[in-house]
């Protein structure tokens, strides 16, 4: 089911980078996307309609036989008519590169607005290692992207890098989302540090996005551990003060904790700290680690088999739940969770990188199980992975 997000292509008479909504005739008619910002998927158009549709001033036309297309618009080679680009998707093309990037997959549960490669932290388990770049262009591209996203998209995440490094640019993107997609849940994955000593939270409040949530990671109740995990002195202090700034600005906040050896040690203390000091948070997500990026380099420091931290996990979950703070478990397969914790688990891994293991074939819980990240290998696989076969639950 997982479709690649970067595809080979060839461009003809493309003058500059473009962000384009992929349409066929039906999609164009039904949703009325501006043709200048759309790419017509010619292969999907019946033969008899092609010549009339080619009269429309498209932003670009995509075909598996680009040499046969007669149009004034730039032409792109369609990488694979069956699964490469489909109506509703949004692509980015650039005349300098023989590649196209899929920025938005219609129907995918993990669509993101990628804010920046830059980050002010350097987390041991970062799945998206940061890079310095000049990223002003991303603000413009993301605002264009937002205009082309399906109006009925249920939810989007703004991610990075650290989105708040865009400053006012991030506020502009959030504002664009609020205007174009007022019914879409918008989650921003931020470390919150950028709010501590700025008025960014107030500027975000002024946008009044109706469905905005900040997902902020906190890895311990004490600075020594949190700062070690994010590899930045003072990060804990800044994140805590950032959380208070956001709360004061009336923002909705989720706390995210990635579970690995350094964070598991203080999990109960962290749960108590959240309840006592951050009782305004709407949700706490305790998340299994994704074995990709920096995590792979830090296996020795990070890896703890989830079956070996069920006690700590249960204590934290029971405490938060009992005190009325909603709590969920992400990215953890049901078979490694203690019975009392399974009700808190969610299917959280984006479709495109979600896999199951051979053992899962015989499991009666697979349908509601988060499964695994596609990057999993033996080193990152719990000894507790097994098919759960229970009565009354057919595989």
């Amino acid at each position, binding site marked *: 089911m997982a479709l690649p997000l970067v595809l080979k292509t060839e461009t003809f008479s493309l003058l500059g980078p473009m962000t384009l909504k992929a349409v066929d005739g039906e999609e164009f008619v039904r949703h009325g996307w501006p043709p200048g910002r759309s790419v017509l998927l010619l292969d999907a158009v019946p033969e008899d309609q092609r010549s009339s549709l080619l009269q429309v001033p498209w932003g670009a036309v995509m075909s598996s036989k680009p040499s046969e297309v007669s149009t004034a618009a730039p032409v792109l080679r369609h990488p694979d008519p069956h699964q490469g680009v489909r109506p509703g998707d949004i692509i980015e093309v650039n005349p300098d590169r023989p590649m196209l990037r899929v920025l938005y997959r219609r129907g995918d549960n993990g669509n993101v607005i990628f804010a920046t490669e830059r980050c002010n932290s350097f987390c041991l388990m970062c799945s998206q290692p940061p890079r310095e770049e000049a990223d002003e262009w991303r603000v413009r591209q993301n605002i264009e992207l937002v205009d082309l996203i399906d109006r009925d998209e249920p939810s989007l995440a703004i991610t990075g890098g650290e989105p708040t490094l865009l400053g006012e640019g991030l506020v502009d993107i959030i504002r664009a989302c609020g205007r174009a997609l007022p019914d879409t849940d918008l989650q921003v994955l931020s470390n919150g540090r950028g709010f501590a000593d700025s008025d960014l939270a107030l500027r975000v409040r002024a946008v009044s996005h109706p469905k905005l949530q900040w997902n902020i990671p906190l890895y311990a109740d*004490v600075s020594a551990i949190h700062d070690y995990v994010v590899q930045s002195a003072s990060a804990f202090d800044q994140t805590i003060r950032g959380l208070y700034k956001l709360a004061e600005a009336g923002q909705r906040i989720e706390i995210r904790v990635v579970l690995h050896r350094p964070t598991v040690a203080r999990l109960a203390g962290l749960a108590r700290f959240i309840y*006592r000091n951050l009782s305004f948070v709407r949700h706490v997500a305790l998340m299994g680690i994704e074995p990709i990026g920096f995590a792979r380099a830090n296996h020795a420091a990070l890896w703890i088999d989830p079956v070996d931290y069920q006690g700590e996990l249960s204590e934290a979950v029971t405490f938060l739940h009992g005190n009325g703070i909603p709590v969920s478990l992400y990215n953890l397969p049901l078979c490694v969770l203690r019975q009392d914790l399974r009700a808190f688990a969610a299917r959280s891994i984006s479709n495109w990188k979600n896999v199951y293991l051979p053992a899962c074939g015989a499991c009666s819980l697979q349908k509601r199980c988060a499964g695994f990240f596609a990057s999993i290998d033996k080193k990152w696989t719990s000894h507790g992975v097994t098919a759960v076969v229970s009565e009354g639950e057919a595989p």
Partner: protein
Amino acid sequence: MTLFRPREAFQGEAGYALLPFQFRRLADDSPVLLTNDAGEHLWLESDDFLAFAQRRLSPVHPSFWDLESRHFLARKGQPLPLEAMAVQLRSRKAFLFQGPALHIFVVSLRCNHSCRYCQVSREADGPDAHQFDMSLADASRAADLVLEAPAPSVTVEFQGGEPLLAFAVIRHVVEHLEARKAERGKQIKYVITSVLHHLDEDKLAFMAAHHIELSTSLDGPAEIHNRNRPLPSRDSHARTLAGIAQAREVLGPHAVAALTTITKESLAVPEAIIDAYRNAGFHSIFLRPISPYGFAARSKRTDYSVAEFMGFYRRALVHLIRVNLDGYPMDEAYAALLLRSILTPFGHGYVDLRSPAGAGFGAWVYNYDGRVYASDESRMLAAMGDETFCMGSVQDSYEALLTSPAMQLIASAAVAESIPGCSTCAYLPFCGSDPIDSYRRQGDVIGHRPSSDFCQRQTAMLDLLFGMLRRGNPDEMAVFQSWVRRQSLAAD
């Protein structure tokens, strides 16, 4: 990988600063309880406590991170957790943003009872007794003061005497407030404190229409209740039970709450009192010691010591926990509110146990004669000839009442954090100041903690609860948590 720095690189400098805390030993050889203004607490073994206080506790000590997390210490070179502590303090003192939110109307002094321990003054009912009812003009004016108070949601409580004997005044106040509350953006909860002997269909229909709740007195088994609350007919208990049933039928099963006053006779029978509440269908009991005011103060026969009360209370708590474990949920209201302030980040806000004091700052009493008092106790003092805590009359402005000499006097002793004996007490975050009690018992609003009954009882109560929390018996903890969270015990 050289890209990443090891754990040690983030430990910071060696050493730490102590943040403000109080401490207490429950017994000579017991661990030390530490608390702070954020409302956090933590236990340390005696040796560790000394090491901690002398700033030589090792950073790898198992309690070190808990001490840091709960704001008892700040590591050298790290910023002080001022925002977190301020947020906790603000949550616990949230009642301060409201101003007076409890408004008590003494609609009449008339009463049919002649209780030996009556906390309030009362006048026997009779043909001339209407002079002891609140006038409708004063009632209107008092209701306007309620609307002037800044609190967005207020509780209006009708007391007496027996307030049902002056139901016309209640009706008048409720209608006055209901007609005006929307324009003032107020939510108003009504409670009538009554023995429930004078209910009728009309009154109940009015209560149902305005969601009025009832609070009654039930002292336990019939023998004790009837002895405490004499009527010529000697049937006070039966009539109160009948009133409870009548009210529940019309107003719903949760519309009636009950308080019990513990007299000398009660001390021997805590189990019977709790069972009587259970049999009457109550899920909460408030075991109040007798008050030193009103008629109670004049009778030597009713007196008992704090130690005697605590002996009773301990037995009661053991029995109550058993009742809960047997499947009947019932809390002890006072323990529940103290536990809530210990185990949650939120203050209990209980008006009789606040710092700054609840008197005047959290509650006003409008007496039948139009005078305004800072608390029930203040008007009892007035009935005994001492008008020290009279704030003024309903004719005065809201500002004049709040800045009256009575309020200035209360304010001077209202902040427990600044009172000798309180400011260094480990139980300060969970306790409060009661200047009027100090004045009454010790002749001075600040008072003297070591000889104060109020302090002795508070200390004993919190010693008891913290001792149980320290032991951590799973059954007891499960019951406590169900009280704190107002949930039934999880069946497992």
